[in-house]
């Protein structure tokens, strides 16, 4: 049994699904559009809730897929289903036949400039959570210059009908608190504020992280959304928000403002997704057949989904789904 399984996307979901499928005796093939495997997680410095280095996880995952046939810098440009096999054409003109397709295309980061009132791309010291993570990884970012006051805005591009994203992006709350602690580690004298609408600490150890953020790191969590950002004469950011717990508007000057950008559906796969007959759900992510028992299945036989392509997910969620998709594919092949 050496059936080809086409896995589109070489991030956490794609790599983990490939690892499991290979162990099951199938032949996974990973198509990754960027120049390396690892996806978003490879760009991350440390993981919540326990500040675990992302590198450790990524390296282990990479090691597990070292024998998996992988195409880098490659996209699927066309795909057809013929009876029970799929014929894919890659951007390098290679053709691949596979018995099943796993969509593990993950997410895109919300384009922060779309929330114009936050002035990303206009004010010098407004940055995104992804850029801050890069700073933690590399120690370099010209916006971060011994800041004294740092603010985090939650739900940028999430839970916001104004940008047509009404869903919760799930991981940003915990990420914000993690990053707030980390920036406090780098600049212990800085005052750090997070502006949240709700703090959704849904996983094990997350609430502990929240407590630690407040108690050990003295991060000030303010319930209220930053509504507008301006720049003052010194290039510092003047923000306005309401402290909704206090019932009064706040105004303060910050040196750096970090926008916790939401996950959005990775749209670069739209054309292929359409050809495979996989629809989107109301949040714009891929529609699986049902959220309980069919979370890896789609309306199309032989086409499976895993990871953040169906909804914003944390890394453990994604890995769990990748493992379950492998079982689904295996059962499908041996049906």
């Amino acid at each position: 049994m050496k059936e080809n399984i086409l896995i589109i996307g070489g991030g956490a979901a794609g790599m983990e699904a490939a690892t499991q499928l290979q162990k099951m005796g199938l032949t996974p093939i990973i198509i990754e559009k960027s120049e390396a495997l690892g996806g978003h997680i490879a760009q991350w410095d440390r993981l919540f809730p326990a500040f675990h280095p992302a590198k450790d996880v990524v390296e282990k995952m990479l090691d597990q897929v070292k024998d998996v046939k992988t195409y880098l810098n490659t996209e699927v440009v066309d795909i057809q289903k013929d009876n029970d096999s799929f014929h894919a054409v890659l951007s390098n003109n290679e053709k691949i036949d596979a018995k099943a397709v796993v969509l593990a295309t993950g997410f895109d980061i919300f384009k922060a400039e779309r929330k114009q009132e936050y002035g990303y791309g206009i004010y010098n010291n407004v940055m995104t959570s992804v850029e801050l993570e890069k700073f933690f990884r590399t120690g370099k970012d010209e916006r971060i210059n011994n800041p004294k006051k740092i603010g985090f805005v939650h739900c940028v591009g999430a839970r916001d009908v104004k940008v047509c994203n009404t869903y919760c992006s799930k991981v940003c709350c915990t990420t914000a608190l993690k990053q707030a602690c980390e920036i406090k580690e780098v600049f212990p004298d800085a005052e750090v504020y997070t502006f949240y609408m709700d703090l959704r600490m849904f996983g094990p150890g997350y609430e502990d992280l929240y407590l630690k953020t407040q108690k050990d790191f003295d991060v000030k969590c303010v319930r209220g959304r930053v509504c507008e950002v301006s720049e003052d004469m010194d290039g510092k950011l003047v923000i306005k928000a309401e402290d909704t717990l206090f019932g009064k508007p706040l105004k303060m000057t910050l040196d750096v403002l970090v926008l916790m950008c939401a996950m959005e559906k990775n749209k670069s796969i739209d054309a292929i997704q359409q050809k495979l007959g996989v629809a989107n759900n109301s949040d714009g992510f891929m529609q699986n057949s049902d959220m309980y028992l069919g979370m890896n299945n789609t309306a199309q036989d032989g086409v499976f989904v895993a990871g953040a392509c169906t909804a914003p997910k944390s890394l453990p969620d994604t890995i769990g789904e990748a493992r379950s998709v492998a079982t689904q594919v295996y059962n499908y092949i041996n049906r």
Partner: protein
Amino acid sequence: MIVEGKQKIWADYQKDIPDDHYFYVRSCIRQSFWPASEVTFLDIVRNKLGKDFYENEYHTTCGGIAYHSDSIPQETAMTIIARQFALMHESGYENYVCSCITSFGLYTETLETWHEFPELEAKIRQYLWDSCKKEFAKPKYLAHASDMIYKFRFDIAKQMKFPLVNVKTGKPLKVVEHIGCHYSKMFPSKGFGGAEYPHVLVGMVEAWGGEVVDYPERRQCCGFGFRQYFVQANRGYSVSNTHKKFESMEPYEPDLIITNCPGCPYFLDRWQYVIAEQTGKTYGKNGYGIPALTYEEVAGLVMGYDPWDLGLQVHQVAIEPLLEKMGIPYDPKRKYQGVNGKDLGVPQCPMHIKSV
């Protein structure tokens, strides 16, 4: 500040508007407060730029003030508007340009509402017929008068005599641009540059050699806020809001404020006097205020109109320091002379803010 970021937004929020042939409607407030501005506008577009802007003596208020003060229902306001459109239609025009921001906002709101609820449009059509026996056609293009000046800003720049430059230092004047709330805050796509970083006035200032200051309270309302101003007891809110803006812009030392709304220049101008009376503080240099001008007045100034013909003497804040900065000659004796040289009398000088 990353200019490229703003330019990208400006590029995203552009609208196509026709070059010529407009049905022009005046603003209730502007023709009372700044009558010369509308005269100047028509003079510029008709005589300096050679465009066709038609006015009809039968047009009335759009009903915006009553509507925003909650004294007439939306249908009434819409019927009034339908009548203006009927006048435009009867005059053979299909491009509508209004002088008032509130009107512009209300026209936009009305057109968008009719678009979403065609049955309402049908109802208003009936109301208009029942009340006036008129039929209307919706304008093909709706623009605000400042959109026109924005559109022709480079043509105006070609005829410019006094750029927005301090003749003594050679440096560009620092200009605060203040957009009327109803210009694009309700419908960002209907204004040049959108709601967050509107370009309509910035474009003019930059085309005429000035430098725009972006201060933290830039987005704030001038303080008019219909319900706040109309009730005397609430005027404290109005002046407090204006005060907040001036406190925020003060460190930038702006030379003038340019506005595109009927109320804004009025409140930004008169409240400077009230603030000075109450706190003793003035925001310009040497006890002067910061002149708050309409875009037509600024256009008129750079094009070399006589300041007193532009009606700058009706501003509370003395204009002379700005004229001197720009090197515009003026005759102080003419300041308080009427149309035929009639002496209008010199107003009393306030305690804290210089009027001459």
